């Protein structure tokens, strides 16, 4: 695949692959064969895949080539290989959700809705990806499948819980992956692995036939190495779905036609207070992005720390409720850290949960008012670059705080109220650092336009390391 239009020997983008397949410069079969070989060669280092759907992928690729031979119109993602976090249903495979327990479940009968939509656009599923157990994770570590590793330093975390999604895209195995984001699980691995990640507005993309975590916060979305690829996938996955109760029955709003509109007219501010950068990497990354966009003002997000606390409490209670029966029957089959968090969550006083949900309504109203003043808000995506595997604490300002619970400090206050956010990778040396761009509900076009403008200026880029 590396001989398909690409520069410097880097793996091709989704857009390049689709153009090559559509024009006949490459066949879908050759692309998928090369991708499968690449996965076989490099994934033993990255540990990002838990299953490779080789036969299915080759069948699908041959069908695309046959369609082209019949002069049929190909989709915008024709021949593009992609993989999904292993909480997406894949027909014929058991949906693991990063667990040992779910291995005893029967195989899924039908693909998740977003897989169906990507494949309807011509993309080719090549496998299922490693993830943190039951998505209750920010590290990408997993005791059952081993940690997915950071492509920039194999001794470091990929971030989680969509760890395999970050690792596989960042490591150049696939140009596109899907993840889930309840509190930051797309945005944290995007930041640590140096790639782009989109968490759309709550309800925008169907969650049908994916394993849940916290229903009131669960989002699904794409990770990619370019904004154009992210947008291609996002547009292909939009649309009402009766199988997801929070899916709005509204027309799709494609962003690709808007992507080149630039930043003119957009009012942007950097989040201050709770989001103030406390180390050199976060400061450098946010300053580069703010400077490139000509941002000269700050904005305070009211009660952001309490928003994170409320997200923490609701996640603990709602996530634990999902697993109480499994805890009663098979507590010993959870990873110890997950088990302890889930049992504790099941003991959460109801008062705190209800107060947190009431606070959520108040906080949402306050934050939405800010969008009368600005169109987008910039924050660090994570409080640090990728920690070492097994690292328990990191320095945050004057404090030492736990890695596992704190990587989502800056992402939780926004997924808590369902705002769209994109993470853009700032290629710092030696490790990349993500910056988060947040907009008002249903304004994915704003965050993707800004990300695209930053990419065009060369300020943000997904650099594929030599693993």
């Amino acid at each position, binding site marked *: 695949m590396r001989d398909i239009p690409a520069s410097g020997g880097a793996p091709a983008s989704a857009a390049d692959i689709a153009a090559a397949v559509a024009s006949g410069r490459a066949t879908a079969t050759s692309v998928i064969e090369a991708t499968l070989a690449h996965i076989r060669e490099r994934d033993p280092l990255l540990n990002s895949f838990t299953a490779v759907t080789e036969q299915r992928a080759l069948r699908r690729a041959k069908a695309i080539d046959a369609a082209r031979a019949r002069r049929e119109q190909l989709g915008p993602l024709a021949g593009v290989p992609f993989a999904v976090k292993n909480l997406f249903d894949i027909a014929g495979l058991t949906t693991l959700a990063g667990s040992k327990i779910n291995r005893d479940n029967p195989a899924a009968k039908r693909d998740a809705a977003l897989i169906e939509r990507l494949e309807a656009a011509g993309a080719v599923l090549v496998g299922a990806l490693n993830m943190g157990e039951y998505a209750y994770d920010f590290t990408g570590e997993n005791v059952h499948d081993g940690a997915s590793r950071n492509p920039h330093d194999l001794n470091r975390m990929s971030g989680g819980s969509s760890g395999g999604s970050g690792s596989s895209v960042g490591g150049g195995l696939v140009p596109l992956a899907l993840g889930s984001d309840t509190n930051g699980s797309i945005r944290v691995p995007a930041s640590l692995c140096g790639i782009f990640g989109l968490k759309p507005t709550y309800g925008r993309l169907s969650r049908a036939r994916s394993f849940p975590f916290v229903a009131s916060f669960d989002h699904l979305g794409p990770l990619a190495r370019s904004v154009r690829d992210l947008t291609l996938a996002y547009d292909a996955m939009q649309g009402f779905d009766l199988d997801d109760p929070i899916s709005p029955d509204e027309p799709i709003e494609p962003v690709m036609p808007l992507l080149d509109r630039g930043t003119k007219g957009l009012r942007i501010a950097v989040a201050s207070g709770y989001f103030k950068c406390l180390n050199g990497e976060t400061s450098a990354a946010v300053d580069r992005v703010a400077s490139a966009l000509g941002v000269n003002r700050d904005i305070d997000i009211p009660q952001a720390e309490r928003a994170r606390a409320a997200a923490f409490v609701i996640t603990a209670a709602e996530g634990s409720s999902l697993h109480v029966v499994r805890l009663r029957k098979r507590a010993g089959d959870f990873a110890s850290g997950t088990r302890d968090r889930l049992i504790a969550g099941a*003991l959460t006083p109801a008062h705190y949960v209800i107060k947190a949900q009431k606070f959520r309504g108040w906080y949402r109203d306050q934050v939405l008012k800010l969008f009368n003043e600005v169109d987008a808000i910039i924050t660090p995506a994570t409080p640090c670059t990728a920690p070492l595997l097994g690292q328990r604490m990191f320095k945050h300002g004057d404090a030492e705080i736990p890695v596992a619970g704190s990587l989502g400090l800056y992402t939780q206050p926004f997924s808590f109220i369902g705002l769209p956010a994109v993470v853009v990778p700032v290629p710092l040396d030696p490790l990349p650092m993500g910056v988060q761009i947040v907009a008002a509900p249903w304004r994915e076009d704003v965050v993707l336009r800004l990300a695209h403008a930053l990419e065009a200026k060369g300020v943000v880029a997904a650099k594929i390391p030599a693993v």
Partner: protein
Amino acid sequence: MKRRAGIKTKSKTPKKTKSAAEKKAAPVKSRAAKSAKPKSAVTKAPTTPTAALPDALDTLVKATAAALKLPLDPAWHGGVKFNLGLIMRMGALIDEFPLPDDAEPGPIFYA
């Protein structure tokens, strides 16, 4: 555009005392007007009466786990207590924030 998904509530403002963040006159300010020393994003444990005492946490873990028929190997007690302590600290942080009696919870169910 009309939307079904997401949380929808009426705009409400707490009627009681304002927090430090709310007292700020305007949320948007010049980037040049940065505070001299940024505050940590992590606050120390609140000291409201709702922050449970360690002994009370021990009791809560044992009694509630038993009542819910959740297994609790003695070796797990420390980890569960640690995590419940975190939840209680976060809960106390929310608890001390005044909200009006008619504040609506976030989620809405659509039939």
